[in-house]
Structure formats: C-alpha cells, structure tokens
C-alpha cells in the first residue's frame, strides 16, 4: 500500500470518511509521494472553493411579488370550491366503488379484447367464405364443361350457392342454354337463369335462345318467362316461330294467346 498511488482514495481521505488504518496508510504514502501530495492539495483547494461559494437566495421582495402575482391570478381564475372531505364512514363505499371500477375496467378491457378477436375471426371467416365461393365457382365452371350431362346439370344447379352470381357465372349458364347439345342441360340452365330476369344479359340470352331453340319444352318455358317480364323484344322471334312449319301446334297456340300482350 505504501508504494501504490492513492489517487482514487483522496476525496474520501479529505472527507475523513475512511477507517483509521487506511487513513494512516495514505498519510504514510503521501509523505513519500510528491505526485499524490500535489493531487491532494488540488483536491483540497477545489473542495474549499465549493464550500466558500455562496448560494444565491431569492430576496424577500421577489417572494412577496410572487405571492401578489399568485393572488391576482387566483382572483382572476374565479373561485375554487374545495371538494368536501369525505367522512370516515363513507370510506368503505368509496373503496367498494374503486374495486367495482377496477373490475369494470378489467371486464371492459376483456370485452374489448374479445370484440377485437371476434372482429378478426369474422374477417377471417369472411375471407374463408370468399375463398369458399371462389372454389365453388371454379368447381361449378369446371363441372359445366364435363362430358357427362348429369355432371353439367350438377354444375348448373350450383347457382343456388351464390347470392349474387357474377357475370362470369351468368355467362357460363348462358353458354349452356345456347350451346349445350343435351336438352336436359339446356332446360336446367334456363331454369337457373330465369331467377335473374332483371339482368339485361339474361333477357338478351333468352331472346337469342328463343330464336335458336328446337326443344318445345324449352321454347314454351322461355315464352312464358319473357311474357311474364313483358319483354317487347320477344315479339319478333315469336312471330318467326309462328311462321315456321316445324313448330309444335301447342307452341303456336301459346304464342297466339300471349302475343297481343306484347304488341
């Protein structure tokens, strides 16, 4: 210890906060070491300077001026009514209220959490539903191209799964009605489309089908639907059917009966 520098311990030494042994050791070292002596002197000077420094205190005048300003401010703010101190016997009620409030907060935050969770689940469900609809649409469109008439009918019947079928589905059904070689498929496609007669596409498809269709069952079904929605454009193809030799007699009678209502 005697030969080691004690620079680190100087502040404590000067402060007198070290134990006697260490104090003695440091004294002995300081006697021999000019470097540490120098350091001690400087530190001593610094501490003295700290102690002799005067802390400025606000004057009495400043204080009174502040008080005045505060009073003026209070006066301008209007009267502050102190809350009546709660009496001791109401303390239990307030703590119950506090507990109730914290429980309410807990419940509310839990509810919020579950609401958000539910929202998220709903979103995911909606997304799933969308994906499900997409899958159904794909299945429907591919079934409608199947070689088997029964499968094509199954594809057409899938229309019931869609609340608002989009244009591609309507178009695929129209394609079946106009071009399918199987009469049963065409008739099923007609029945599926007849639920969407508000669509211009569907009306036009029906008129086109009436010009093309050879199966009397489908002809009569189309005629009835077009008359029901009072589609004036249907009059022309109906007249053509009347003139055709191979049109079945009951179709001609049907047309004769309904034509006046369209013209």
């Amino acid at each position, binding site marked *: 210890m005697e030969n080691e520098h004690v620079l680190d311990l100087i502040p404590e030494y000067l402060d007198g906060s070290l134990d006697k042994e260490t104090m003695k050791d440091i004294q002995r070292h300081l006697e021999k070491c000019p470097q540490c002596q120098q350091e001690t002197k400087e530190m001593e000077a610094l501490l003295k300077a700290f102690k002799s420094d005067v802390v400025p205190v606000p004057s009495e005048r400043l204080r009174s001026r502040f008080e005045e300003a505060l009073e003026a401010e209070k006066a301008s703010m209007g009267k502050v009514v102190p809350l009546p101190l709660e009496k001791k016997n109401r303390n239990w009620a307030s703590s119950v209220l506090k507990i109730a409030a914290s429980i309410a907060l807990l419940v509310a935050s839990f509810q919020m959490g579950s609401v958000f969770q539910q929202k998220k689940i709903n979103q995911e469900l909606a997304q799933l539903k969308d994906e499900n609809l997409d899958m159904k649409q794909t299945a429907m469109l591919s079934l409608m191209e199947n*070689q*088997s*008439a*029964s499968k094509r009918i199954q594809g057409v019947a899938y229309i019931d799964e869609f609340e608002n079928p989009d244009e591609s589905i309507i178009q695929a059904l129209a394609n079946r009605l106009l071009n399918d070689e*199987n*009469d*049963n498929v065409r008739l099923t496609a007609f029945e599926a489309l007849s639920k969407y007669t508000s669509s211009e596409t569907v009306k036009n498809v029906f008129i086109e089908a009436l010009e093309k269709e050879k*199966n009397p*069952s489908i002809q009569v079904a189309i005629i009835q639907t077009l008359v029901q929605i009072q589609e004036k454009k249907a009059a022309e193809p109906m007249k053509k059917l009347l003139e055709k030799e191979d049109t079945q007699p009951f179709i001609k009678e049907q047309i004769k009966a309904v034509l006046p209502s369209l013209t």
Partner: protein
Amino acid sequence: MRKFTIILAALFASAVAQAQADYTKSLSGIQWVKIESKANVIVKTHNSNELLIKSGPSVETPERAKGLKLVGEGGTDNTDVGFSVIQDGSTLIVYNLRKTGDAEIYLPKNQNVSVKSTWNGDIEIDGFAGEIEADAQLNGSVKVTNVNGPVTANTLNGELAVTFGTVKQDSPISLYSTNGAVDVSLPSNTPANLSLSTLNGNVYTDFDIKAAEKNGMRTLLGRNIKSTINGGGVSFSMKSTNGNMYLRKK
C-alpha cells in the same frame, strides 16, 4: 367338277357366315359410348370389356347390295353389320346406318352410355351401373330398366319410362319429356330431393309427397312440386310439358 362345286359352295357358305358374324371392338381406354340411330336400339350388358353389335336376321342386306358398302349420315359401314364405329379420343361413336330393324348392342355393365334416336326409333337400355344418357329427339320412346347411376333422358313425343335399382347419390337425375308421359319406378327407401313439374299434365304418385304449403294452402295444383323423400338426397328432376307423370314405389 363336282369337287369344284363343293369347294365353291363351302366358300360361299363361309362368306355368308362372315357377313353374319357379330361385330366386336375392345373398349379399353373408352369412357363413353355414344350410339346414334334412326331405328330401334336395344342396349344390354355382357361380361366382357368390348362392344358387341349383334347382326340378327333383321339386318340382312338385300341381294342387290352385294359387293356394295352401306353409307349414311354417320359415315360408311366399317363393321359389316350396318354400323359405322369411330373412336374420338376416349369416346366411341357408334352410328346405326340402317333405318329399319332392331339393333342389338352389348356393352360392359359399368360403361357410360349415351343413346340418341333421331327419328322413330325406340331406345331400350337395361342393366347398367354407369351413367346413362338417352335422347329420343322425335317420335321414339325411351325405356331404361335396372339402372343405378345417373340418368339424363329426354323425349319429344314418345314415352319416357325408367325403373331404378338402388339410386346412386352422387350426381343428378333428370327425366324430361315434351309430349310423352314420364313413368318412373324407384325403390321405396330411395332418398331424393324431388322436383316434379308439368305444364298441362297431371302428377300421380304413391310416394308421400308433401307439397310446400303457401299461406296454409297446399300447392298440389302448382306447376312445380318440390319435395324430399326419405330425408332428402340426390337431385331428382322429372318434367313433362304436356304429358302425365307417374312416380311409383317399386
């Protein structure tokens, strides 16, 4: 000279036998057999995986046509039994070129079969477990018996009669006629979603059909009856525009 005559006679006999032989063709790789005919067609099942067209006495060629080929809308007779058989991908197209007489065709039980009669021919199909499509476009009738699979059938003026064994549930059944009656027999325990519709005909059935009630009124007289039997199942649609409909328990 006498020997020569015998040989000649033998040759002639074998030639005749050749002409009278049934026609067969393997069906490996074939998914659908499509038959088209103006005359009556009877389609039955047999146990080998091939198409067999019987040449009955009714399909004898006239004496004058010797050495000549039968031709028609569907092509040229390439079977020697009055049929044109053409493979198109996985479909075998079988045209009956004759306009008279009964054609008898045998196919394996699980074959998917489509039969079309374009004139007066009646169609009879018996015993299949695959899919059946039958279309009598003019005056022919359709009679389908002992089938399990989906049936899609349509007639214009002829009667449409179908007798089912166990009804497969995977694909819809659709039986339509314009002017003919539609007559269907089902096992009484068949689950199905029925749709019976007619414009001018009547519906008769011994199934317990509960018509949807509208404001407390039963709409039995309605044009479209929708009902489930045995808890509901495969979509089963029957329609005749002008004919009656009969739905029977088997």
